């Protein structure tokens, strides 16, 4: 009936799809941008955490080397570094065990096994000073 009037018939459902796509496509593009930005930031944060951890472990290794070197200044520097790392919470909770085990073994080594065995005795008084142990 429209022949000759130059009017084309587009089914209604195609019109609806066209309108929906027109409205949705910028929103989808925006969502894609947000998702990409979120993923990039997440990845950056993970990388940053990893870099922090790497640097922290480097400092731990340096502190341990200073402590094991055995001289007074080095031990002080190592102890201060480990304590600062622990209090700043740069060290992860799972690293506390490492610090605890390391400091215990070095402290026992400095005191000497024989003196350490004596220290376990309740009748012994432990005095800090430039003494014969450690």
């Amino acid at each position: 009936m429209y022949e000759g009037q130059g009017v084309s018939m587009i089914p209604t459902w195609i019109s609806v799809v066209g309108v929906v796509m027109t409205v949705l496509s910028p929103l989808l593009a925006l969502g894609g941008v947000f998702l990409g930005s979120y993923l990039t930031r997440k990845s950056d944060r993970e990388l940053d955490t990893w870099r922090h951890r790497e640097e922290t472990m480097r400092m731990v290794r340096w502190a341990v080397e200073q402590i094991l070197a055995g001289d007074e200044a080095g031990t002080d520097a190592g102890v201060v570094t480990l304590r600062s790392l622990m209090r700043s919470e740069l060290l992860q909770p799972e690293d506390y065990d490492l610090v605890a085990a390391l400091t215990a073994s070095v402290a026992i080594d400095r005191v000497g096994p024989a003196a350490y065995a004596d220290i376990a005795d309740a009748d012994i008084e432990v005095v800090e000073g430039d003494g014969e142990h450690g």
Partner: protein
Amino acid sequence: MAEKKTIRVSRQAVELARLHVEAARRAGRKPEPGVARIAGARPDNGNGTAPAPA
């Protein structure tokens, strides 16, 4: 009364022991008893009291 036997330990050993106690507490464990005693060593300044473990 017999005099209490004393053991002298260096300041570094005491500092290490105190760090051990702190790390063990943060890890939720009990510190080694002997090391904890070293951490509580009293300073050698006559009749000072034992400091609280750090």
